[in-house]
């Protein structure tokens, strides 16, 4: 087949990805987006212009050689495509699903100026899924160096750091507080957006590379960081413990039954598989009228989970499906969630109340939530974040009938891990202070940190990027003969 010309490539339309229909998918927790088939992937790959100075690569926080993996794919060399992808990104099946490509690589794609960008994320997912389906290749591992590294937290930061250090031949142990590895990928992001089997397959790959996983290990309680370094004989420690501490609303009535953090709600649903209760033991309250406060990715995940629980409940009992609202104090323009998630939520029937803020929650005589007073807002002058500040409109209060309120207003690092680690300086936001942003080295000797525990709640790929640069520096440190 003759090579396509640039003009011909530009004429190809972006290929949609198969997805479950909204009416169907809101009654199950299976994945919404179904991925490309080989023909679609090759056809989409044909759109890439293989730019000489590809802006997409610069837009990618871990600088995946995007045009190279796309060209290998369209040439039918999937092995090579995977090799290129994995040389920079050790968790491509995850990133292909949850990265905000629309603000990273795809937004800067040259095609985006006149038409739609190359669907880089979908192609990444295609290659990664192809690899997982065939049982996933185990990357080569260097000869043992005899050095030991302890990683705290099995989220994307910790997993990436572990993968790179294992590849370099170091003995790596990952200590995870929960019973399953994955961090937010398993307890926060729902099955319908990121199937847990995908996460476990990526973890399985690390295990085959020799990484040891210790679950049920709450660092700060079971061992302190000093004990890992001194008693357990680790040469270095990487902290990737995330930002898991929920913020609550500061309004009267937040402790009524039915008011919960998005962390609690999502953990019950995802990690504990509450949507399969009673087959799985952990229950999760299925509200009849649910309000989710906030409009980030976390809020969208909570709202869409609540909707699904409500439809499953309605199927079982013959009742009316749950009504789910997103209550957000700013306007649609300021919504921090990914556009795709907002779109999906809307399609599934989530109702958006913009410029609305809760002021009080009401409970009944049993202490159960039974209502929420809200106030309408208007936008004033820009605030510190550069966004227009929402101001309450006097006299605009109104009551909403709710029985479950899920609070998704951000998180900060959990301080448990820092127990007895005084040399480890932290900022006033509770995040770990790093002395060098490019390496993640902390103020404590032999201790590095990266991901949400340093930046506050951010993204999967930025956490991975931090895990990767820390691994490079830890490797340098471990191999330094003057040590």
């Amino acid at each position, binding site marked *: 087949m003759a090579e396509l010309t640039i003009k011909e490539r530009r004429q190809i339309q972006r290929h949609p990805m198969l997805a479950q229909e909204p009416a169907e998918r809101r009654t199950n927790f299976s994945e919404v987006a179904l991925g490309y088939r080989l023909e679609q992937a090759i056809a989409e790959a044909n759109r890439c212009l293989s730019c000489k100075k590809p802006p997409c690569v610069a837009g990618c926080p871990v600088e995946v050689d995007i045009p190279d993996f796309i060209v290998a794919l369209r040439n039918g060399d999937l092995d090579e495509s995977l090799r290129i992808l994995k040389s920079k990104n050790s968790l491509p099946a995850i990133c292909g699903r949850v990265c905000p490509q629309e603000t990273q690589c795809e937004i800067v794609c040259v095609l985006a100026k006149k038409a739609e960008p190359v669907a880089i994320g979908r192609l990444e997912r295609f290659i990664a899924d192809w690899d997982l389906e065939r049982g996933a290749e185990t990357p080569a591992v260097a000869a043992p160096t005899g050095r030991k590294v302890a990683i705290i937290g099995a989220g994307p930061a910790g997993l990436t750091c572990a993968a790179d250090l294992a590849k370099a031949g170091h003995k790596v142990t990952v200590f995870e507080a929960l019973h399953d590895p994955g961090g937010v990928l398993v307890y926060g992001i729902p099955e319908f957006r990121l199937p847990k089997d995908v996460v476990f397959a990526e973890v399985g790959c690390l295990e085959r590379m020799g990484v040891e996983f210790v679950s049920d290990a709450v660092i700060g309680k079971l061992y302190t960081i000093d004990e890992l370094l001194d008693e357990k004989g680790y040469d270095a420690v990487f902290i990737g413990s995330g930002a898991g501490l929920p913020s609550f609303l500061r309004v009267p009535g937040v402790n009524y039954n039915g008011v919960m953090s998005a962390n609690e709600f999502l953990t019950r649903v995802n990690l504990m598989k509450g949507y399969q209760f009673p087959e799985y033991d952990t*229950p999760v309250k299925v509200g009849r009228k649910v309000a989710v406060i906030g409009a980030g990715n976390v809020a969208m995940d909570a709202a869409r989970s609540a909707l699904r629980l409500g439809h499953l409940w309605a199927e079982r009992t013959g009742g009316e499906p749950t009504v789910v609202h997103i209550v957000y104090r700013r306007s649609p323009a300021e919504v921090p969630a990914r556009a795709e998630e907002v779109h999906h939520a809307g399609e599934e029937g989530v109702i958006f109340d913009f410029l609305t803020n809760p002021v009080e929650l009401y409970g009944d005589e049993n202490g159960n939530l039974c209502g929420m007073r809200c106030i309408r807002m208007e936008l004033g002058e820009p605030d510190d974040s550069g966004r227009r500040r929402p101001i309450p409109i006097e006299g605009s209060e109104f009551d909403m009938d709710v029985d479950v309120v899920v609070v998704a207003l951000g998180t900060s690092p959990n*301080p448990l891990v820092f127990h007895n680690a005084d040399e480890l300086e932290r900022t006033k936001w509770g995040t770990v202070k790093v002395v060098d942003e490019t390496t993640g080295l902390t103020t404590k000797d032999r201790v590095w940190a990266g991901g949400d525990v340093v930046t506050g709640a951010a993204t999967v790929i930025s956490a991975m990027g931090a895990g990767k640069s820390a691994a490079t520096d830890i490797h340098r440190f471990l191999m330094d003969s003057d040590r």
Partner: protein
Amino acid sequence: MYEILEKVAFSDVTTMLVVKAPEVARKAQAGEFVIVRIDDKGERIPLTIADFDREAGTITIILQEVGKSTLQMGAMQVGDAFANFVGPLGHATEIEKLGSVVCVGGGVGIAPIYPIARALKNGGNHVISIIGARDKDLLFWEDKMREASHELVVCTDDGSYGRKALVTAPLKEILEERGDEIKRVWAIGPGIMMKFVALTTEPFGVKTIVSLNTIMVDGTGMCGGCRVQLKEGAKFVCVDGPEFDAHQVDWELLLARQRFYEEEEQRALEHYRSLLQVETAQS
């Protein structure tokens, strides 16, 4: 996996399990708890560390069968193992030399009060203990409590053993007789008992510590499901507690929060029983 090395049934509904968990035992202290999960489908269940043996590498837990998970645990045998056993969690009891102290254990709360009484006695305090249960069958560890205390009062609600009284009755008498001597009271048991202990000690101005048993998920401060309202604001029981000043606690809210999942708990129990029936029918 965390193997069960020893099992003692104290009554039809109260069971002691000694579990192999050397790393947890290495660090365990009185007042702390663990979170256990029976299997991959299991809930994360908080249970107090009733005893520990660092040398043997074991943790002792005592459970009262109140619902699906505790029922299933009660049916576990020596050689069976828990899928997960996380700990030690929470803050240890602060043991100081205070003088005379009272330790109150109600029902399964006798288990967690025991290591505290023992530590207080070893710490040079005069320990007066009161243990109580609904009836004789539900009482246990009278011998251990006697050893860990200088004085011991035993009561049952129905009078089937010891004195016929609720634990608050002897507590009140002790406070009336020698209130000035009593420097602190510890109380662990059902929420309702702890509430009434708090009401009993408050007029005497004796600082009272309770160990709260809210519903939990992770036990590490991540979910906030365990939160309790104190006068100074909301706290997370798993990381800020489990021990709190009883006179600070909003008891009505605490008791209401424990009831939040009643309907689902009932469903879980029915589901479990139906599974058991299928199993028995098949064997």
